[in-house]
């Protein structure tokens, strides 16, 4: 097939002359998006939204294949990245899990096996309760109840020893309370458990609980951000996301605990390919599809690329390592 031979030749040229072809790198075969979550999970939706934004707006004309590698809380995805070193036709979608997972578990990959591409958006965390079942209406009531009966407030979340449970330990420490964490497979499961009155609270992202809020079976108490969320559209009870107080305002001194939605490539991909993907992701974020996704999830539109992203990773990883150490979760401590 001569056309393939030609492309192969062109590809060799590109690799040989990186300087000359810096902006010219283009994928010439299907690109695989590997999501570090099962179908329907937060990261899966994230990857598929980017996929739809790119293909609908014809920003990427080669086919995009989304694959799920959720095993080992998503570690499978990054181990896969390690085995595809230098392959520029695969992108890996995750959260902070890419660098947090190796802290608590013995895994064969490390951050060195990944090339950071970008963090596209941040998901805030909110403290939710079921006002009817628990009788808790605000953060004061929550703290009072927690102090009254230590260990009796059950807080659900997605998975163990990850963002949700870490956040709970931060709440405990800053308020001097004792809560009990109950891990579920996903945040939506924890949402239903709160709505059904089986547990007291959860720390879901807005999108995981917003429907229950509208139905009156969950109520947001405070958001773990330094500033209130921007969206002023009324959602339920005459309240908008903007009316939810920050947790610092409300009395829980946990200033900022957002979850980045991150994109990675394998280590050692050609720098021009990295440049191409960074630009591609910047374009994707500007599409109406992605804007709609941000709005639905009340996400914080903060995109990080290049050195800013690398700095962020370093700091975020260090802060997680510190929290893990305090909780006795570091793998070395086992």
């Amino acid at each position, binding site marked *: *097939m001569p056309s*393939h*031979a030609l492309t192969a030749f062109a590809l060799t040229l590109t690799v040989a002359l990186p300087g000359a072809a810096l902006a010219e790198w283009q994928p010439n*075969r*299907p690109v695989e998006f590997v999501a570090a979550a099962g179908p329907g999970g937060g990261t899966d939706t994230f990857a598929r939204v980017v996929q739809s934004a790119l293909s609908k707006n014809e920003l990427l004309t080669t*086919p995009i*294949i989304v694959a799920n590698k959720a095993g080992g809380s998503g570690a499978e995805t990054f181990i896969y990245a390690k085995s595809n070193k230098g392959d520029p*036709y695969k992108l890996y979608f995750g959260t902070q899990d890419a660098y947090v997972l190796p802290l608590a578990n013995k895994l064969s990959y490390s951050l060195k096996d990944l090339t950071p591409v970008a963090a596209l958006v941040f998901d805030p965390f909110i403290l939710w309760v079921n006002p009817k079942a628990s009788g808790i209406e605000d953060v004061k009531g929550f703290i009072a109840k927690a102090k009254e009966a230590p260990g009796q407030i059950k807080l659900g979340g997605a998975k163990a020893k990850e963002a949700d449970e870490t956040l709970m330990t931060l709440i405990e420490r800053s308020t001097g309370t004792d809560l009990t964490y109950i891990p579920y497979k996903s945040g939506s499961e924890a949402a239903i458990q709160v709505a059904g009155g089986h547990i007291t609270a959860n720390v879901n992202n807005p999108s995981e609980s917003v429907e229950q809020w509208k139905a009156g079976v969950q109520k947001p108490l405070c958001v773990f951000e330094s500033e209130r969320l921007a969206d002023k559209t009324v959602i339920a009870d005459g309240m908008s996301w903007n009316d939810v107080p920050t947790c610092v305002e409300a009395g829980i001194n946990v200033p900022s605990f957002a979850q980045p939605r991150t994109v990675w490539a394998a280590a050692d991909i050609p720098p021009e390919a990295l440049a191409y993907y960074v630009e591609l992701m910047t374009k994707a974020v500007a599409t109406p599809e992605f804007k709609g996704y941000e709005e639905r999830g009340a996400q914080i539109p903060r995109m990080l690329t290049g050195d800013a992203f690398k700095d962020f990773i370093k700091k975020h990883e260090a802060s997680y390592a510190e929290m893990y150490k305090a909780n006795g979760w570091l793998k070395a401590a086992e």
Partner: protein
Amino acid sequence: MDISRNTMEVATACATAAVGGIVCYGATQNGIGWNDGPEPGYFPFYIGCLIIVGSLVTIVQTVLRRTSVADIFIDGERLRTVVAFFLPIMALTLVSAWLGLYVGMALYTFYAMRVSAGFRTHTALFTAAIVVAVNFVIFEKIFMVPLLKGPILEYFGIY
């Protein structure tokens, strides 16, 4: 070359008991206690124990049961048939891991058609080509599930 049923019963039960032992050992690394609810290794540990118990009882039952001593699990000829069927599948896996699934399935189909089924060479070649083509269209084109390509297809620019 005949393998008696009792031999096989005992061998299998030993194998399952060994698996049970591995499970128990693995569980001890997660903590097997009960601390306001089971620790991560609690259930796996007792599951491993139950596997061992079940296997041991099966061994005892086999040894005590005299009636079926003469039962044959598999005779030499049948064993050869089964092995002759299974070895090519292992070869298929080995080749696939090395040269990609399409090359693997082409070689395997050709072998199965030519040697096992006894078709003529060109019929076997034709079948192999059809099998590869059908799978390629279904997986790569219709459902866009990339199968393992391997260095040969990569060289020809098929990814």
